[in-house]
């Protein structure tokens, strides 16, 4: 359709991305690796690996095993700690990227607050993403982000402190995902990222042992896409005015469009980047191709446009939270 001015840009609660495609947390290296392989300026934003207060060595090896159309992995959040990250990695990532979103991970409320404090006033930081799939040491729960009250407490504290938009990355397999999303949005986050990968186990039948050194890990890759779409769909209906960022199994422009139809405002590309570092750019190109073919101006034109029967109403945990 001639005359349509097409734009991929999207506003995620204050951070405006030129394309709705980001590199997912843990897949962008340390800022040295990607610039030689992909033009990062063409990527909407880069989410850093998750950073903790203290240096973290991470899980024992092997850390990755292939599964059908997926990978089971566990790096155990290997990172140099917030201080080394801020002086070394952050400036490097910012030099080549359009936007840097820093993923932070804690096991207590205080850790999240201190991490946010360390990022305060750093011009390189465009946003903060909260990794909430870790253990909650204070309340002795295996997954901090699986509980609406606790996720909201952490998200609220960070959102109040932060001068930049805060995304809450919620575990996609949490029982009451829509309820948790509503709670963190009420607490003040700018967007929700859906979501943290589901836990997984790889078994090596020949050796009678787990495929990963850390025994259990997470599942990523294309196998995840339908789970991501369900989680995005139900979350987007629960928080209709808040940007939802889809992550998990997105590899092509069509995958991204499917996520938009389910209600996503933007997507993150993780495993696909590890296989082909140009994936975040080719996904954006694929989105443009779809929009052109349909004569649409922007991804917002398809956002949440999945045609669902009117009788489809009560969703997930929506009712439990009201």
């Amino acid at each position, binding site marked *: 359709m001639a005359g349509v001015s097409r734009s991929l840009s999207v506003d995620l609660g204050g951070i405006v991305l030129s394309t709705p495609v980001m590199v997912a947390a843990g897949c962008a290296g340390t800022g040295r690796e*990607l610039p030689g392989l992909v033009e990062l300026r063409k990527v909407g934003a880069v989410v850093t690996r998750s950073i903790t207060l203290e240096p973290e060595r*991470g899980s024992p*090896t*092997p850390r990755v095993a*292939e599964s059908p159309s997926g*990978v089971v992995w566990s790096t155990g959040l290997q990172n140099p700690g917030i201080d080394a990250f801020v002086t070394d990695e952050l400036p490097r990532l910012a030099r080549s990227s359009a936007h840097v979103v820093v993923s932070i991970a804690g096991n207590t409320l205080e850790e999240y607050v201190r991490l946010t404090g360390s990022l305060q006033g750093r011009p390189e930081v465009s946003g903060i993403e909260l990794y909430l799939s870790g253990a909650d040491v204070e309340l002795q729960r295996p997954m901090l982000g699986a509980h609406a009250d606790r996720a909201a407490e952490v998200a609220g504290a960070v959102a109040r402190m932060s001068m930049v938009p805060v995304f809450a990355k919620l575990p996609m397999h949490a029982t009451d995902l829509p309820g948790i999303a509503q709670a963190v949005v009420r607490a003040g986050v700018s967007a929700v990222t859906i979501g943290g990968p589901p836990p997984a186990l790889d078994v090596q039948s020949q050796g009678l042992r787990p495929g990963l050194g850390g025994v259990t890990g997470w599942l990523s890759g294309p196998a995840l896409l339908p789970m991501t779409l369900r989680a995005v769909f139900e979350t987007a209906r629960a928080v209709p005015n808040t940007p939802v960022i889809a992550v998990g199994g997105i590899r092509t422009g069509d995958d991204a469009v499917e996520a938009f139809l389910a209600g996503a405002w933007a997507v993150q590309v993780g495993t696909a980047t*590890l296989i*082909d*570092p140009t994936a975040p750019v080719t996904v954006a190109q694929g989105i443009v191709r779809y929009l052109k073919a349909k004569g649409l101006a922007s991804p917002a034109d398809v956002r949440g446009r999945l045609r669902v029967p009117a009788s489809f109403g009560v969703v997930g945990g929506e009712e439990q939270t009201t």
Partner: protein
Amino acid sequence: MTRVRAEILSTRSVGAYHSLTLVAPEIAEKVRPGQFLAVQMPEGREFLLRRHFAVHQASRRGGWAGTIEFVVDPHGPGTEWLTSVKAHESLQVVGPLGTAFAYPKRHTNCLLVAEGHGAASLYFLAQELVARHKRVDMVVAAESQERVFKPIEGKRLSQTISIVTADGSLGMPGSVMDALPDMVESTGTEVLYAAGPSATLAQIAGFCRQRGIPAQVAVEERMACGFGLCQTCVVPVARKDGSGYDHLRSCVDGPVFNPARVLWDRWLSEAPTMLPTPPEGLPVVRSWPG
């Protein structure tokens, strides 16, 4: 590192292995022994991750200029698929990746120790060492005759070669460690290079430490991306000052490491011994002697 679509020039089986030669001048020009390639798998298969192979041969001159060769040990869906691709098809490849073996400056007597298809990258190293007027001797080990990688090539490249097979079907029956002490004695080894399974490398590392032989080994750890993005292929390596250790990525910080700095027990054992705190028990290692 470069990301290229490379045409397959030839593909053939070599004993139990399979060798592929690619037209990739950008990579052939830069690659050094020890470095590797990340080969993308086909779309629409259920296996996803790139497969990683040490470069066996890079031709910069002559009729084969601009080509690289790597060797596949078929043992899973990705490697099996690679044995089925035909000449003139193309592969999406990133390379050269990782660190290369360093050449000695002062020393001349080099012993190259390979197990299985680890020999592929060491033959490349042998060529480069010979071109630098070094003496090259080899220990080549494998489970059986068809898993001894190109024994004739090994003989051609080395002054003396000791071939060992677990079943005794070629050369001496036994393992690397059965042949190593004698070879070191008889060739006056000054520096040692090794490639092969990590358990063998750990034994070689122990031997080199005991004898005070400077060495470099190319490690293998399960890898997802190969370009340093994902932090899965890490190896525990002691800091130079002995103040502790770090998980270094074998794709960008390796695959070539000084074996004296690798914490083999921590890496390979299911119940690693606890490190002293502060870890003053960690080795303080001088850099590669050259």
